């Protein structure tokens, strides 16, 4: 009898293929850049020139590299914050709002709470204030989820808009610098509240905060009882319930930690860069953080590298705006495409393509 059916089918691998999980992300990113190039072409630009200008802008000069590190800082901190929550399948997309709250609380500490203290007091005070502010903004949706079962995706997002309006109100109203001639913004922070810079660049202490936070988080997630609980809860509510894990408490703690890390990013922006609270504090770091976290597969150490990579895209986008007067929105567009291709590519690490109708499986993109 003839072979009955022929064709292709996807077959689930028992475990993700090792080789594929290294190769596939690289191929995905390259394909994403090609797809982005097509869109750039459609908008009437030469994609090769655009990409070259972006890389030149971000990595071609000392100041460019410094600027890339400057943007790495908030992406790293918010990426870590978002990743902690994602580990538990808590879809915190409120990193932006939590960042704003951290910035607001830190501003209060710098301008009103501890404005006459020395740097050794004021900086820690800002850090604590930012952690508290961000944690608070994470705890609201966390508590709603833990106690009332309210979907955290939507509440965290709504709180972003609310936080931004709150900041707008502060810089237009009660905290407005009277000497600012109508420009919305708070007065400048006292010198003691400025985070120290690296040399003459704008790179500041916030980067160190981020790297230290990444290492602590890695240890916490991999080596502690608490990290184990988060992994189990992230994989299966039912198993966590079966083991009697304190789910509600952990949701609260994770959302607080997630918000606190994003809040720290807000502090580092106002104390390290702007030295005041102003409008449009963040160009959407809290959203880009989602991509950072996912691309790094929620691994804190990986997030350091990915944050840097996406900072290159961001800085490159800004440079385009200046050099070629192209919209900086090219950066978020490229980030979206990269995430699509990584998501699609991930399938190839979990499945393999098998030909039906022959006895030998034909393997594509997968090893072992």
């Amino acid at each position, binding site marked *: *009898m*003839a*072979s*009955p*059916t022929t*064709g292709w*089918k996807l*077959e*689930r*691998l*028992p*475990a993700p293929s090792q080789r594929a999980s290294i190769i596939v992300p690289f191929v995905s990113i390259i394909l994403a850049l090609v797809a982005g190039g097509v869109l750039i072409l459609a908008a009437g630009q030469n994609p090769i020139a655009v990409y070259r200008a972006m890389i030149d802008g971000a990595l071609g000069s000392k100041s460019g590299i410094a600027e890339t590190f400057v943007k790495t800082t908030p992406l790293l901190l918010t990426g870590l914050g978002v990743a902690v929550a994602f580990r538990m399948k808590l879809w915190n997309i409120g990193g932006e709002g939590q960042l704003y709250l951290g910035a607001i609380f830190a501003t209060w500490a710098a301008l009103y709470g501890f404005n006459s203290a020395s740097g050794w007091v004021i900086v820690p005070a800002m850090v604590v204030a930012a952690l508290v502010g961000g944690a608070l903004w994470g705890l609201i949706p966390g508590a709603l989820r833990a106690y009332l079962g309210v979907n955290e995706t939507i509440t965290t997002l709504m709180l972003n808009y609310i936080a931004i309006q709150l900041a707008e109100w502060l810089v237009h109203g009660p905290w407005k610098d009277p000497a600012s001639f109508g420009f919305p913004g708070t007065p400048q922070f006292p010198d003691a509240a400025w985070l120290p810079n690296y040399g003459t660049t704008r790179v500041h202490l916030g980067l160190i905060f981020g790297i230290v936070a990444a290492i602590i988080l890695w240890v916490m997630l991999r*080596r*502690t*009882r*608490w990290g*184990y*609980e988060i*992994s*189990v809860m992230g*994989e*299966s509510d*039912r*198993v966590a*319930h*079966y*083991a*009697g*894990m304190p789910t509600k408490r952990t949701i609260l703690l994770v959302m607080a930690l997630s918000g606190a890390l994003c809040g720290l990013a807000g502090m580092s922006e106002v104390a390290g860069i702007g030295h005041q609270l102003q409008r449009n504090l963040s160009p959407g770091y809290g959203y880009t953080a989602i991509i950072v976290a996912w691309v790094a597969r929620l691994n804190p150490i990986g997030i350091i590298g990915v944050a840097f990579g996406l900072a290159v895209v961001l800085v490159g986008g800004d440079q385009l705006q200046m050099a070629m007067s192209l919209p900086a929105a090219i950066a978020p567009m490229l980030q979206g495409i990269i995430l699509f291709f990584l998501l699609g590519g991930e399938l190839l690490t979990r499945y393999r393509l098998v030909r*039906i*109708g*022959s*006895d030998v499986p034909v393997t594509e993109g997968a090893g072992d």
Partner: protein
Amino acid sequence: MMPIQGMADAAAPPAMEATPAVTPPSDTPTPDRPPAIALLDISKRFGPTVANDHVTFVAKWGEVHALVGENGAGKSTLMSILAGLYRPDSGTVVIDGTEQRFRAPRDAISVGIGMVYQHFMLVEPFTVAENVLLGVRNSSHLINTKDIERDLTALGERYQLQVDPTAPVWQLSVGEQQRVEILRLLYLGARILVFDEPTAVLTPQESDSLLATMRSLAAEGFCVVFISHKLDEVLTVSDRITVMRRGRVSGETTPAETDRRSLARMMVGRDLAEYVEHPDVEPHPPVALGPVRLQLTDLRANGENGLPALNGVSLEVHGGEVLGIAGVAGNGQRELAEVITGLRPASGGRVAIEGKDLTNANARTVARGGVAHIPEDRLATGLVGAMDLSENAILRDYEESPIARGSFLNAGAIAAFTDLLIRKQDVKTPGRWARVRTLSGGNQQKLLLARELAGDPKVIIAVHPTRGVDVGASEAIHQSLRDQRARGAATLLISEDLDELLALSDRIAVLYEGRVTGIVPAAGADREHLGLLMAGDEAQVGAHG
């Protein structure tokens, strides 16, 4: 007979038009009529596992053909190929003499193949008639179930499968839902009916009635395939029997030519201990009864839908005793296990472990109080499939020394503990780093059992401990539970398999609608009597409750 036939045809004309190959089964089978089903040289693999290895299976019109084999023998895969759910890697499917290449279930449906799955393929919020309408092609665009309701009622009367066609499916009992499945297939013009372990969820009386329905369908010319591992039922109802083992056909026979013993040998490939083959005689070495370890007093709880599921259950289990809980699925068994183990709040009553009140305690407190829990759905509740063996091994003890060192986890202790569990239950695995999802059902269950029994529990709540597990692992699991009994643990064994309950229990309590309708000693228990209790028969309940 003819009006019924005509009606079913009228109800699904396209199915019939599309399938000239299917002659109505009411035609008298003639010697030269091609077989209803001929699955020839079928192979199918899932990743590294070969589920079907050059399998040939032939069933005729007008016969009940049993397909037997232990879990994982490849029966379900073979039937899924017949149903168009899977495509074979190689081999040929011939239905009534015509070669078929099914690309999807609709292709199989259109040539008259109907499956009654173990997990019913019904949409619960829909009514019976709406579920039937789902499978009808070329009806009007608006939902109009009047005709279907009328026809279903008529069909139900004809085949003794009465059910209210306007009732939402979620309101029906398990037995009624099964009737809906069968009625739907008949309505849609199925001529070949495949029953996958259909009696597993029924009371003995319901099973008898289903077997009678199967016989009468065969008598009318339908081809009936009966997948089962209940050898007594197979020997009673079948015309022919095909036995599968490890993805291959290990024999074909008739009830006249064989008996339990040789069937079991064909299934397993070796002689089984007398008691596995014939559970009634499984040994119950006398164990001195210990003190009452598990005591339930007037226990009440609500089910998933917020309605009462347990309505005052009072039970006592002594050390060294196995109390079996029998009942049709959905009569409170799940809730009973969950309330005792702290997974579901009790709305009333009391749970005491060795006299200590643990009503509504957290699951961890209950576990630390000495209660082991082998849950109903191991891979959804008791194990994390995406995590490795060691991460699953420490689920109960990750906060205890030496596995925990302060807030940190001790990798060395975790490895040692995992290896200990693997050795204790002889879990077959490439290593403790393997993901649990990649293990066979039996090995998953052994790992879970090893973990739950590691702390020498006082009370064991075991729910369907051998469901979906091969015979070897099943024997090992039964032996473990027997060892625990000898050690003095109190075991509550919840199962829908009467054979398993009779084999392992000292006493059997029957749950019906959240109440205990009777408690009988397992030794010499009468199946008919248990069946009546499971069906909530008032006279029986009155006499023994």
